[in-house]
């Protein structure tokens, strides 16, 4: 029953009552003193269990008889007088202590429930904070172990996982429980003869797993207990269901993305490849068919066209493939400690070879920190930025490249003096093939279309490369006119090096 800890007030009350009885003896008559005794019994009953209260009342009546009822110091009872007092007192104290014990039991149950609810709330918080299914299953196992003080086996369906030990019998039970999505074992109405209790980890539509444990037979509120454990299981189930649907959404997104990538590649081939291919074929067929009638200068010029268009195709192919690769497996890149100065240097060497007449000014401060990156990808990024700058600004204007070291970042700015990028295009230029459909119909489309010839994949791949490096890439206006391509690279804490003395 309930352990009554608050008996000190009861002792005090009885003490005071007896003090008063002795003090008032002789002043009041016996009947009035008896009433005092009834009062004390009733009030003390508030603090005592029923049994203790009855014991106290009975002994009080006997002592009262001994001390106050004539003849005093004997148990000779005037039956017709004292029996009535005894019955009244016993009745009152029984009723009071019974009511109190019920009240206390209710209160205690309330506290226990509140405590459990709080515990479950904390537990479900930690469930949500857990990173993967096995960590969550482990949490459930620990909880059930703690509640039941028995060995607990947890089975998950996806990913297939078994925590704790389960013999073949238990394993069968677990799977049956998962499949039926219902509790099995003692007290469940199914397979009552089992000693093991199986509870399903339920989502809305199906079970995501099950737990098995040996319930304590001594637990007298086992139905409530089982319900509580089922609740814990369901919390995990719902969490897993939430995760599952999240994965489905992600999968759907990925599918949509790869679909859009496929479309991108198709658009690339159908639009951007035809022009250079047409030029190639034209120039090559002229050389092939009419070489005899052409001057060597003319042939050399045509051969140059073939070379240029082949290089253009090569660049587009490299970019398109890189875009596809980064899209398919953005994490499979090989990063190492690299010097930005070196990377820019090797890009510039190639750019100067391609554009021998072009003025390219470069300002790289000394002593830059190393960056953790994939050098090949960054070379491709800068190569595209510089190529775009040369392509979309007049040949007689310089291109300026600046590097600024800032706290925790390095910023590279590639600046041209071309027409710049209109505000409406500042985001779109980084999307592959954004231009193609809408613009053709517009009256002023020629500029934009011309501007963006072959630009689609180039800047899109730059954006993708920036993304896998946690870098930011954006375009700004340059005064008085021109575009500034800005790349902001994160600088990580530098690798350890021992210095030469």
């Amino acid at each position, binding site marked *: 029953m309930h352990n009554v800890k608050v008996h000190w007030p009861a002792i005090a009350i009885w003490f005071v009552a007896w003090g008063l009885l002795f003090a008032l003896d002789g002043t009041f008559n016996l009947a009035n003193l008896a009433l005092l005794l009834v009062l004390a019994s009733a009030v003390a009953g508030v603090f005592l269990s029923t049994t203790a209260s009855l014991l106290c009342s009975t002994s009080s009546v006997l002592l009262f008889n001994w001390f106050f009822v004539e003849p005093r110091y004997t148990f000779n009872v005037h039956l017709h007088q004292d029996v009535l007092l005894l019955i009244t007192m016993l009745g009152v104290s029984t009723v009071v202590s019974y009511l109190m014990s019920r009240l206390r039991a209710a209160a205690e149950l309330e506290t226990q429930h509140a405590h459990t609810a709080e515990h479950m709330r904390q537990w479900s918080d930690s469930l949500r904070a857990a990173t993967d299914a096995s960590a969550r299953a482990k949490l459930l196992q620990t909880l059930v172990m703690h509640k039941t003080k028995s060995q607990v086996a947890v089975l998950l369906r996806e990913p297939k996982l078994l925590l704790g030990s389960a013999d073949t019998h238990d394993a069968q039970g677990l799977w049956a429980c998962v499949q039926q999505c219902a509790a099995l074992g003692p007290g469940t109405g199914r397979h009552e003869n089992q000693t093991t209790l199986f509870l399903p980890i339920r989502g809305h539509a199906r079970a995501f797993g099950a737990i098995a444990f040996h319930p304590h037979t001594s637990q007298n509120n086992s139905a409530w207990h089982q319900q509580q454990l089922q609740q814990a299981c369901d919390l995990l189930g719902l969490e897993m269901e939430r995760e599952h649907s999240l994965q489905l959404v992600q999968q759907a997104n990925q599918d949509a993305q790869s679909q859009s990538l496929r479309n991108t590649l198709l658009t690339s081939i159908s639009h951007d490849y035809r022009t250079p291919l047409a030029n190639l074929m034209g120039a090559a067929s002229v050389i092939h068919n009419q070489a005899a009638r052409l001057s060597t200068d003319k042939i050399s010029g045509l051969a140059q066209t073939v*070379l240029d268009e*082949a290089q253009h195709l*090569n660049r587009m192919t*490299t970019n398109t*493939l890189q875009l596809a*690769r980064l899209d398919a497996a953005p994490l499979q890149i*090989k990063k*190492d*400690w*690299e*010097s930005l*100065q*070196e*990377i*820019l*240097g*090797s890009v*510039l*060497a190639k750019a*100067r070879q391609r554009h021998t007449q072009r003025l390219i000014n*470069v300002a*790289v401060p*000394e002593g830059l920190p*190393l960056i953790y990156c*994939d*050098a*090949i990808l*960054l*070379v491709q990024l800068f190569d595209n930025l510089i190529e775009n700058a040369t392509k979309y600004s007049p040949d007689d204007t310089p291109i300026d490249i600046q590097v600024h070291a800032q706290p925790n970042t390095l910023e590279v700015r590639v600046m041209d003096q071309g027409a710049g990028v209109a505000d409406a295009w500042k985001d779109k230029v980084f999307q592959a093939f954004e231009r193609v459909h809408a613009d053709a119909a517009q009256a002023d489309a020629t500029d934009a279309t011309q501007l963006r010839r072959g630009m689609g994949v180039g800047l899109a791949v730059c954006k993708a490369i920036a993304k896998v490096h946690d870098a930011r890439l954006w375009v700004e206006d340059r005064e008085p006119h021109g575009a500034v391509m800005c790349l902001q690279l994160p600088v990580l804490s*530098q*690798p350890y*090096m021992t210095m*030469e003395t």
Partner: protein
Amino acid sequence: MALKVLLVEDDRNLRQTLRDALSVEGYEVVASGSSADASAVLRHAMASDSPLDLLVLDLGLPDGDGGDLLRSVRAQYALPILIISARHDYANKVALLDAGADDYLVKPFSISELLARMRVTLRHRGTVVLAPQTQYNCGTLDIDLAKHTVLKAGEAVHLTPTEFKLLARLVRQAGQVVTHRQLLVDVWGAEHVDQTQYLRLYMGQLRAKLEANPTEPTLLLTEPGVGYRLAE
């Protein structure tokens, strides 16, 4: 006598183009389209009176990995090998350079690039059997490894021991790419093989001392993702 080159390339058109171009330049070209055929040609030619002088090897062969062929050639002959690879094959390319290939070229390339690489590779064909290069002269820079001197425009440049070791390693294979791994192992030791940060730092220091403009070097060239090359 003309230098004899074995060209292993599976694409018929490219093989024909390269064959013609190399013949025009005065090389004697033996062309092969597969790994098996190339092995047979190699066995036969190397045993004959006029052995091969250079192997130009494409990595993507129909009957097996060009890498296997490279390793078997390296194990048997002191024959210089120039790798031709597609762009995406970086990891494989670096592995082959580490495995003993002399240099590489990324497809698509121009014929002048191929000829330049071939000339350098042929000049170094003695590296395996003969003493490696110990003197280097390019522009205003004069290096003599034996005398331990580095002169820039006639004036001595002071280098730290590590800087000198790094420069010396590049001089021994001037004109050819030396991979990060080769440099780290030879200069810093095998235990530092993954610590490319040292390379970046000392390369920067060397450039600051030897180059007119360290950002755009003309001598100590970067091959991103692969290694470094000392220009000729």
